[in-house]
């Protein structure tokens, strides 16, 4: 009972197990990787600030983002998902997070971002608490590996104040 089929299957099983071990090791090494991210974001213009018919405040912004995310990439990184959120506090919630912009970075060569964008997604409040509100811009990133654990991190960037009255 020691045929070539048996030997082939044993080889395949052991090979798969060792591949798993190699992937785990690659993912574990990533945990020791300490990136140094440099990023800035500033709101350059508040395009429109008004109250929607359903009573929610809505803001569309223009801002520039400069972020150097090259240090996030390691040998087992598949891509990096980066997004900018506006975070503020109001009487309803201790933390509101609204995503304004996002981007997928497929490789290290494209990880140095210098962009000025109109907010991809508008900042819409749940209610009407945005007038005169201080809002924090926060950059989040998800490092997606080729195999293993996804790493998530964030960095607080600049703050800005919304005007005390609607623009239209």
């Amino acid at each position, binding site marked *: 009972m020691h045929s070539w089929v048996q030997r082939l299957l044993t080889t395949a099983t052991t*090979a798969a197990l060792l591949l798993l071990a190699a992937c785990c090791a*690659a993912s574990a090494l990533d945990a020791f990787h300490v990136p140094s991210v440099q990023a800035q974001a500033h709101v350059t213009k508040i395009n429109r600030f008004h109250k929607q018919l359903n009573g929610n405040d809505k803001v569309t912004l223009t801002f520039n983002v400069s972020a150097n995310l090259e240090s996030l990439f390691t*040998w087992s990184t598949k891509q990096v998902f980066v997004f900018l959120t506006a975070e503020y506090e109001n009487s309803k919630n201790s933390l509101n997070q609204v995503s304004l912009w996002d981007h997928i970075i497929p490789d290290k060569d494209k990880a140095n971002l210098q962009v000025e964008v109109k907010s991809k997604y508008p900042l819409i409040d749940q209610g009407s608490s945005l007038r005169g509100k201080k809002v924090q811009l926060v950059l989040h990133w998800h490092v997606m590996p080729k195999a293993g654990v996804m790493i998530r991190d964030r960095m607080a960037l600049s703050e800005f104040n919304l005007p005390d009255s609607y623009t239209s």
Partner: protein
Amino acid sequence: MDWQGQKLAEMLMQLLLVASAVAAFVVGYAMADFQLMLLVYAGGVVLTALVTVPNWPFFNRHPLKWLDAAEADRHPRPQVSAAPSTAGKKKAGKNK
């Protein structure tokens, strides 16, 4: 494949696979290329399969030495001449 050959094939398989996994990881990490690691490892697996799966002649260097067929005639199988009564006695003796 004889008994020694089976043992050799098993050892070779494990040794080659572990060695190629370690080599692939080191090469991949050093060159910072995940795909290269997979390629090196795939190469190692194919090599291992080529070495250990076919029944190569060097797995058959220790053939089993069977006794000559004539030996069986010279030493016939002992006949069980025991009647059931003797068996019963033996068992009883053990129980004492």
